[in-house]
């Protein structure tokens, strides 16, 4: 799936192994609450996690 916009990244658990974020995907009209994980079987899910950790979508807030 192709995403076009990501906002509001925040840690999803105390271990900081997942990041919740709001994502707009092509073909889905509404903002999607999404959990990004490095273990996601979907490649864009892993990519979103990596980019969020790097700060591409702003600092990751504490959950």
């Amino acid at each position, binding site marked *: *799936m192709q995403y076009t916009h990501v906002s509001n990244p925040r840690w999803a658990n105390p271990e900081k192994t997942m990041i919740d974020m709001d994502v707009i995907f092509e073909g889905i009209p509404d903002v999607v609450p999404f959990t990004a994980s490095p273990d*996601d*079987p979907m490649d864009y899910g892993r990519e979103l996690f990596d980019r969020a950790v790097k700060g591409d979508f702003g600092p990751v807030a504490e959950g």
Partner: protein
Amino acid sequence: MPTPTIPNSITDLDPIAANNSPKGSDDTGGAIDDLFRAHAAIIRKQFSVAESVPSAENLPVPAEGSFLKVTKSATEILTFSDAFPGRAVYLCFEDGITLRHSAALILPAAADIVTQADDTLMFVNEEAGVWRCLAGWKIDAGKMLAKVSNLDDLEDKEVARANLGLGSAALATIQTGYADTNLGRAMIVGGFGLGAGMVSQSTNISAGSLQTGFYYISADAPYIYGGGRFTLNMNYGGDKAGWRLSNEPYTNRLFISGSNSSGSVALKKAAEVYTTDNKPAWGDVQDKPSTFAPTVSGTGTAISQLAVGAVGTYALLTDLSTTSGRSPGATVAGSNLRYSNTYSDTGTAPPGSWRLMGMTTSADNNNRHTSLWLRYA
């Protein structure tokens, strides 16, 4: 009383009336008719053909006569003898006499003149010791300035162009046709299809010979590189193929023809460019699977190969994010859910976004918060 002096030449007359004959003290009784005739003759002689004079370094110009011929004797004329200030005369020269420009003989554009037979020039005795050439022309029509000669019939073309304010473009020969390819020529409107319609090209012509420009390859011409007939052709080096854009008239079909090889006059066969208004047909797609129609077994195999938690998979999950119930279709992030079992034991959180495909109800008991979810993003 003294008798009046009868004038004989224009030089006997004076611009001041009182200095002319007869004087007031003269006895004009028997000479008045002679005086009238003399003045009439002097006037008429100013507008007459004078005797020819031979060319000389100091050309003897008579004081009377409006036109005279200069025969060739000396090869150069440096000065004219004085007549009187204001004296004007047309001189008609024989061939091969050189008039040298100087402060005493002022010639057009400060340039020497080499006469041709019957060249006729007008001069005026501007002041003592100074003659100026005012105008001139060729009597022979065959030697007159002609438009088609592009000033080629002038003795000194560079000086003439400078006097006319012409730049170097005046040296160029104009293109003789829309496809005239002679280098250095001045392009006409429509040359090679610029500024007017495309140039119609009806013969089988190689890309190397077709100069850069806009062309219509007419329908009866074998179009050896394919593509469309409305063509922007880009030549390389004047005789080699560059590349080409084209459009098949009145369609959405666009083509690009690439260069073939170094020094080649040929292009590669035109490749069609697919656009939103000209999408490729199934047969145009390369490296596609032999069949595309999904089968029951193929679909089942594909689904069975989805990883746990992949988009499109179902999972039995417990919703920990609320004690309220959720209706079918509710969506949450994976971090709110846990993999579960029918006893509502919980494991790890799935990634992604999930849609509730069953329902949950309000209760503190996890049993009522465990349901079937579909990952949709």
